[in-house]
């Protein structure tokens, strides 16, 4: 729960070139050892959105995106990326999909500028390396060896390399792991810029604040299967989070004034304080009802359910049902 987190509005407006989903995954299955991998995952990514994939470690997030970019061949199921089959059109998809993988690195004896030139040369229509370095604040590091970069700078270079081919889709896996809070915020802003330039972003993360801040829609995967797919706000609501508010009334009042409201699900007193739980436009309903009863609400604090709550509920619910 974070204080006064406003829910985001609805799903992403599809981009101008919207013609069906840009990525379709249908009943994907990819097994490794016992209990690992992806059992049954289906979803669609719309053009121009930031699509989040969240879930606990080992849930199958990375396997899913590796199948999308053609690094792994699914055991069964259908994947279509930009209307192409990653198994058949490997190089065409690599040309148009930029990838930032977790646990990937660059040769130790390469400089930042050299790495950009090298990766640019693999693509037919690359972005300008100098421009991209500028956008990521790496211009000063042009001549720095990769192995001398800090974790944050390595991560930024990794993002730059994912964008160097001018991709239509950028797949970013564990984007901000290991970054300090300021670097995370900068990176988030950068991803929003990328999306504003028309790139569809698929973001794998296990940080709920990141998914909540960036993603238009979020896919929750657990144990290799889809647990939920919705907007961050939708997920937070559907998990029964609702809104909580508390205040100190100016005069004593009968709490039935509040319990009769359709928005209110629960009211409790704790010393002077009153706690109200509910859904929908809870705050104005409560304030209006109190005003009608001649009560002023002091020190009012509002808490909205967050994706974090929804995540915990959904994952734990799953655990509880498991034999």
């Amino acid at each position, binding site marked *: 729960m974070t204080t006064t987190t406003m829910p985001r509005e609805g799903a992403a407006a599809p981009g101008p*070139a919207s013609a069906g989903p840009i990525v379709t995954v249908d009943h994907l299955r990819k097994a490794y050892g016992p209990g690992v991998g992806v059992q049954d995952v289906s979803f669609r990514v719309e053009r121009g959105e930031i699509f989040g994939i969240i879930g606990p470690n080992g849930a199958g997030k990375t396997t899913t995106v590796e199948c999308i*970019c053609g*690094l792994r061949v699914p055991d069964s199921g259908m994947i279509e990326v930009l209307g*192409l089959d990653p198994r058949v*059109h490997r*190089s*065409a998809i*690599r*040309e*148009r*999909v930029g*990838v930032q*993988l977790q*646990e*990937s*690195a*660059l*040769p*130790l*004896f*390469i400089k930042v500028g*050299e790495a950009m*030139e*090298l*990766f640019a*040369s*693999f*693509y*037919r*229509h690359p*972005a300008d390396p100098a421009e991209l370095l500028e956008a990521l604040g790496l211009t000063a590091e042009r001549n720095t060896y990769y192995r001398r970069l800090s974790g944050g700078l390595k991560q930024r270079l990794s993002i730059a*390399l994912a964008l160097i*081919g*001018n*991709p*239509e889709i950028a797949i970013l896996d564990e984007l901000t792991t290991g970054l300090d809070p300021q670097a995370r915020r900068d990176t988030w802003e950068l991803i929003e810029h990328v999306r504003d*330039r*028309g*790139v569809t972003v698929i973001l794998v993360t296990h940080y709920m604040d990141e998914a909540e801040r960036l993603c238009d829609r979020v896919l929750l995967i657990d144990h290799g299967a889809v647990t939920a797919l919705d907007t961050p706000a939708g997920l937070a609501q559907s998990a029964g989070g609702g809104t909580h508010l508390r205040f100190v009334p100016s005069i004593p009042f009968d709490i039935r004034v509040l319990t009769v409201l359709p928005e209110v699900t629960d009211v409790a007193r704790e010393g002077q304080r009153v706690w109200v739980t509910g859904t929908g436009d809870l705050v104005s309903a409560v304030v209006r009802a109190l005003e009608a009863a001649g009560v002023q609400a002091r020190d009012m604090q509002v808490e909205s359910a967050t994706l974090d709550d929804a995540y915990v509920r959904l994952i734990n619910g799953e655990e509880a049902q498991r034999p």
Partner: protein
Amino acid sequence: MTAHTVPTEARPPSRGFWELLKTEERRALRAPVGLLLGVLVPVILLVIFSAIPGLKQVAPGSTLTMFAEYVPVLIGMSVCLIALVSLPIPVVSDRQTGVLRRFATTPAPPSWVLAAQVIVNFALALIAIVILVAGGVLFFGLHMPAQWGGFVLSALLCIAAMFGIGLLITSLARSPQVAGVVGTVLLYPLLFFAGMWTPKQNLSPALQHIGNYTPLDAAAQAMDAAMQGHFPPTRPLLVMAAYAIVFGVAAIRLFRWE
């Protein structure tokens, strides 16, 4: 970032390969393992051997001095060190750290990574051979190989055979440590059979027979013959070619990104 009209089977541009080659060349100069081990060490040995008076005598059963007989062995050693250390280690460490995985997400095909590494190390091996032969001729009284064509053919086949073995290590080793151990374990017997420590005539017939089918012994025999003015015998040439083909094909078949 607009949608380009890309044909469904786009081939990556060839300048990508040249950039990759440039990158491998830079690495070979910035972390000069191959230069130090494969070029400097054999050249130092050449200088040391040239200063040993006993080696100036004519070798038994040969028209060459014992010093001259060591030149093919040193060439074999140089090629061996380049093939077993300088060739595999960078690619294997790139596999371990995830560099190859990163490349696998780009349009660059895996064959480029191997090809660039082979070209850079091939150049290193040629440099080593030229320095050893030219240095021997210019400073230490070595005669130019009388059968030039045969000598060049033998040297190239020696490189091909040893690179075949090195490439198989490149394709299979999971870590640079494993590659290093395998390379070292192979290095000593190969050099032993080539006559690094004992002239081959001193070995038992059984060991001599085994030696005939090791790549560096075959290389030494072929280059030795060419230096004496004969075209190299068929068997050592075939032995080297067989190593190149069998190990090279296996390496390409078994190559792994991760």
